[in-house]
């Protein structure tokens, strides 16, 4: 009989340790940190461009934009008026991890911010496993995707606190059913805050901004 040595260690314990450090660092500065996740092309960057435009007068924001290749997203966020923007090019990896965030935060002046957005790599599987030290995950889905996506990727929808249904201006051009997607998402996670937006027409964005302002106010209280 071989000797069995009990270990009881989380596989991602090193990532979790770093994420804990990030969380403490952000908490001490009362920064709200949101980790944006979605499939590629749901509109994470568009939502952030709009958010920068609407809130940059009143909310001090920093943004970390992750991509497998190119700094295109980070450049878009800078063009939209983002002052504190750091790209992370993962060079193949399909998710951001806490180590990458630690490095990016070292290059940002987080003493002066209220809100940190982390735009994850477009992927609904791997980013679910990696804590980045955020307050919450926000998952995006767009009306050009299947309304059963929450059922296909339950882990991500379960771990998210809010869901943004984007591209609602394209409703009717696909079989996407708004009632069905809400029902699917809520069966996985009954506490999801749900927003319906169009970054093209601006529909629904005000309630998204109000929610962000509420998070910032709650953090300062």
């Amino acid at each position: 009989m071989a000797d069995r040595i009990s270990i009881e260690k989380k596989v991602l314990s090193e990532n979790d340790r770093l994420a804990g450090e990030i969380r403490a660092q952000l908490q001490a500065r009362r920064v709200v940190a949101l980790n944006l996740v979605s499939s590629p092309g749901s509109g994470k960057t568009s939502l952030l461009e709009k958010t920068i435009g609407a809130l940059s007068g009143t909310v001090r924001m920093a943004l970390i934009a992750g991509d497998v290749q190119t700094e295109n997203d980070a450049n878009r966020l800078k063009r939209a008026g983002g002052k504190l923007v750091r790209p992370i090019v993962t060079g193949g990896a399909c998710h951001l991890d806490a180590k990458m965030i630690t490095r990016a935060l070292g290059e940002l002046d987080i003493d002066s911010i209220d809100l940190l957005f982390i735009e994850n790599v477009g992927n609904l599987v791997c980013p679910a496993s990696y804590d980045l030290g955020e307050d919450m995950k926000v998952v995006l889905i767009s009306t050009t995707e299947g309304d059963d996506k929450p059922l296909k990727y339950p882990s991500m929808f379960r771990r998210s606190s809010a869901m943004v249904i984007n591209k609602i201006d394209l409703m009717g051009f696909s079989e996407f059913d708004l009632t069905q997607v809400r029902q699917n998402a809520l069966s996985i996670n009954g506490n999801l805050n749900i927003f319906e937006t169009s970054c093209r027409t601006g529909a629904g964005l005000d309630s998204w901004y109000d929610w962000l302002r509420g998070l910032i106010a709650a953090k300062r209280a």
Partner: protein
Amino acid sequence: MVVSMLNQVTFEWGIKQFLILHVTSSMRRLDCHVMHELSIASSIVETVTAEMLSRGLTSIGKVGLRIGALTNVDPEALRFGYETMVVDTPLAGSTLEIESLLVKAVCRKCGLSFEAYDFIFICPNCESGDNEVTQGQELEISYLEAE
């Protein structure tokens, strides 16, 4: 005699460290470019390697894992990734013993513990969607077995 034994130990130690560095850095480059499970496998190799070093183990037979269904980790893909990675390393020949855990939750409204079949988190008793996951998010190394 003692000196030569010490030399031998130091030599083996050095080789091991070289392999560990070499293997883990090449794995990082691969990461989950290939698949999600490969990056998880790489974290397992790192953790097991560190445990072997700190416990003075020179080889390993089995690595016991507990994996919850909510982690999106496919056991067969993980096994394949792990076994491919450990070839020609101190972990060579070791295998993963995976205990798969179903998803369970407890209802915050009526207190019922239930199994979330197909990841549907609706209380079968009171139909509330407000609940807490109690099992299914595990991604843990539970034990090592020396050969």
